[in-house]
C-alpha cells in the first residue's frame, strides 16, 4: 500500500471538499498546471501577514526584523530542500521569470564589463534546447537569439516520447553556450537523463539550465527529492504554486560562483550597493537579483509548503504518484480508441499522463470530464512544438498529486468512456 494516508492528507486541503457542476465531488487532476494548497500554507501566510508584515532588509523596527527573519528562514529551508545554499536561491514571481532572468542577464553581459564576459553571446554561439520544452524554456531562448544573433538548436523527441540523444555530439559542441532542458516533461511525463546532458555540456563548457518545475514538487521515483548540487546543474528553476505553495512565488537556483559573476536583470531598490545619478553598483547575490519589494508572504508560504512535503516525505510522494501513474496508464490503455502520448510504463517517468481519444477532440473530452467533476487540462499545455512533433493540436492531460485517491482515476476512466458514448465513436 501507499505510504501516504491520503484520506488524512485531503483534510488539509479545503478545496478538495468542494463539489462542482451539479454537486459532483471535485476530482482534481490538474496539479501539473497548479497544485492546491493545504491549510498549513494558508496559515503560514496569514500568520505572517497578521503578525509580522513589514518591508524586509530595510527597516530597523521590530516588525521589519521579524519579517526579514521569516523571509530568510524560508529561503534557507527551501534551499536545503533542493540541495542548495541559501545564497544560491533567488525568489521570483514564477519559474518563467527565472529563465528570463538568465537569458536577459546573459544579454546584458556584453555591456557589463569584463567579469560578465563569460556570459556574453553573439553570432556563432549556440543555445541548445529540446523539442519537449515548455514555452517558458523555449521562447526566452528564441528571443535571446533574436537579440544577440546566436543560433537556437534542439534535441528531437522519439516516438515513445524520449529525448533523441542520437545526434548529441553534433548538437552540443564547442559553440554551445547554454544547454537548457526540462527535468520532467509536463506533457509526456518523461524524466530526462540529467547526468548525461550535464556531463556533455560541461565537456564543451556550456552552461546547463534545468527546468525543474515538474520534478521538484514530485521528486523523482527511486530518488528522494531533487538535489541540484548533486545533479551538478548550473541553474535551475521551479514554481511554488505547483508544489503546494502560494501563487506568485518561484525560485531560481544558481551555483554561487555563477550568481556572483552574473550581471543583474531587474534593477531598482534593494539590489544595489551604491547609487549615484551617474551610475550604480550592485549587491552580492541573492539580493542582486531581487529588485523591489518582494513576495514576502508567499515566500513564507512556500517555506511552509516545503515543510509539508518533507513531513510526508518525497520518497513516499514519488511512490504514491507512481501508483497513480501506473493505474492511469493501465486504465487508459484498456479503453479502445485512447492513445497515450508519452512512455507507457512508469520507468523514468512521472505523474503526467496525456492522451487523445479517437474521434473526440480533447476540448470535448475535457468538457465531458468536467461534467463528471473531473478537472483535467486540455490543449497543448504550453508545449506546442511537442504537439506538432506528434502531429496533434492538443491532448487531454491528467496530473495527479499526493492528495489524489486511486479511486479518482476510475472517475476519469468513466468520464472518458462517457465522452466516447456521447460523441458516438
Amino acid at each position: 500500500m501507499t505510504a501516504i494516508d491520503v484520506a488524512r492528507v485531503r483534510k488539509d486541503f479545503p478545496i478538495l471538499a468542494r463539489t462542482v457542476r451539479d454537486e459532483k465531488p471535485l476530482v482534481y487532476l490538474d496539479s501539473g498546471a497548479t497544485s492546491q494548497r493545504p491549510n498549513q500554507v494558508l496559515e503560514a501566510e496569514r500568520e505572517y501577514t497578521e503578525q509580522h508584515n513589514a518591508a524586509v532588509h530595510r527597516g530597523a523596527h521590530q516588525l521589519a526584523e521579524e519579517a526579514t527573519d521569516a523571509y530568510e528562514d524560508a529561503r534557507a529551508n527551501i534551499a536545503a530542500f533542493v540541495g542548495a545554499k541559501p545564497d544560491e536561491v533567488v525568489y521570483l514571481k514564477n519559474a518563467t521569470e527565472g529563465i528570463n532572468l538568465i537569458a536577459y542577464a546573459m544579454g546584458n553581459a556584453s555591456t557589463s564589463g569584463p567579469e560578465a564576459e563569460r556570459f556574453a553571446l553573439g553570432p556563432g554561439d549556440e543555445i541548445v534546447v529540446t523539442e519537449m520544452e515548455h514555452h517558458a524554456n523555449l521562447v526566452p531562448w528564441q528571443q535571446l537569439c533574436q537579440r544577440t544573433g546566436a543560433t537556437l538548436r534542439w534535441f528531437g523527441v522519439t516516438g515513445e516520447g524520449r529525448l533523441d540523444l542520437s545526434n548529441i555530439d553534433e548538437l552540443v559542441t564547442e559553440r554551445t553556450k547554454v544547454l537548457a532542458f526540462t527535468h520532467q516533461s509536463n506533457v509526456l511525463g518523461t524524466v530526462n537523463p540529467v547526468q548525461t546532458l550535464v556531463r556533455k555540456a560541461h565537456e564543451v563548457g556550456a552552461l546547463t539550465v534545468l527546468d525543474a518545475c515538474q520534478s521538484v514538487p514530485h521528486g523523482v521515483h527511486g530518488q528522494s527529492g531533487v538535489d541540484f548540487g548533486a545533479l551538478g546543474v548550473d541553474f535551475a528553476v521551479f514554481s511554488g504554486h505547483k508544489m503546494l505553495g502560494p501563487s506568485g512565488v518561484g525560485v531560481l537556483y544558481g551555483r554561487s560562483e555563477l550568481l556572483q559573476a552574473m550581471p543583474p536583470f531587474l534593477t531598482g531598490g534593494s539590489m544595489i550597493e551604491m547609487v549615484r545619478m551617474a551610475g550604480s553598483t550592485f549587491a552580492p547575490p541573492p539580493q542582486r537579483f531581487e529588485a523591489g519589494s518582494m513576495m514576502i508572504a508567499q515566500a513564507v508560504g512556500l517555506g511552509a509548503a516545503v515543510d509539508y512535503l518533507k513531513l510526508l516525505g518525497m520518497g513516499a510522494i514519488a511512490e504514491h504518484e507512481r501508483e497513480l501513474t501506473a493505474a492511469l496508464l493501465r486504465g487508459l490503455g484498456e479503453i479502445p480508441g485512447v492513445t497515450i502520448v508519452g512512455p507507457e510504463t512508469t520507468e523514468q517517468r512521472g505523474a503526467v499522463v496525456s492522451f487523445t481519444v479517437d474521434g473526440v477532440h480533447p476540448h470535448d473530452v475535457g468538457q465531458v470530464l468536467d461534467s463528471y467533476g473531473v478537472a483535467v487540462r486540455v490543449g497543448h499545455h504550453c508545449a506546442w512544438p511537442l504537439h506538432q512533433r506528434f502531429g496533434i493540436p492538443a491532448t487531454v492531460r491528467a496530473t495527479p498529486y499526493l492528495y489524489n485517491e486511486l479511486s479518482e482515476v476510475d472517475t476519469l476512466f468513466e468520464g472518458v468512456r462517457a465522452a466516447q458514448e456521447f460523441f458516438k465513436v
Partner: protein
Amino acid sequence: MQLDSMYQEIILDHYKHPHARGLREPFDGESFQVNPTCGDEITLRVRLDGEQVADVSYDGQGCSISQAAVSVLTDLVIGRPAKDALATMDAFVELMQGRGKVEPDEDVLEDAIAFAGVAKYPARVKCALLGWMAFKDALVKANAVDAEK
C-alpha cells in the same frame, strides 16, 4: 444533464456533417486564425460578388464547438450582403459574450441560437468565435470592410 445544454443536437449535427467545408478557389480574402490556448486553427476564405458574400470555404482542426460554429456561419452568410453578415456576427458575439444572459434572436441567428448554452462556459466562447474572427479578417483582407469597424 448539463452537457446537453452545451452540446445541442444542432451543434452535434453540424460537427458530424459540416456544411461548405474545404478550401475553394477563387477567393478574395483568406484568413488564418488560431486559438492560442488549445492550438485549434482554421483557414477561411471569402469570395465576394459585389457586396455579396458569394462563398465561404474553410479548413482546419478544432473541437465540436469551433467546427460546428463555422459550419453554421456558412449557412448564415453565404449569399448575403457582407454588411448584413457582419450584423449577424455582432449578434452572435453579443450572445456568446453574454454569459448565458442574452436572449438570442432566432430571426437573426437561426441555427446559431443553439450556441446559447455555450455562452455559459467562458472557456469555450473562443472556440465558437474562432471561425467568425477568421471570417471578419478575410473580409478585411478582401477590402470588403474596414479593419476598425
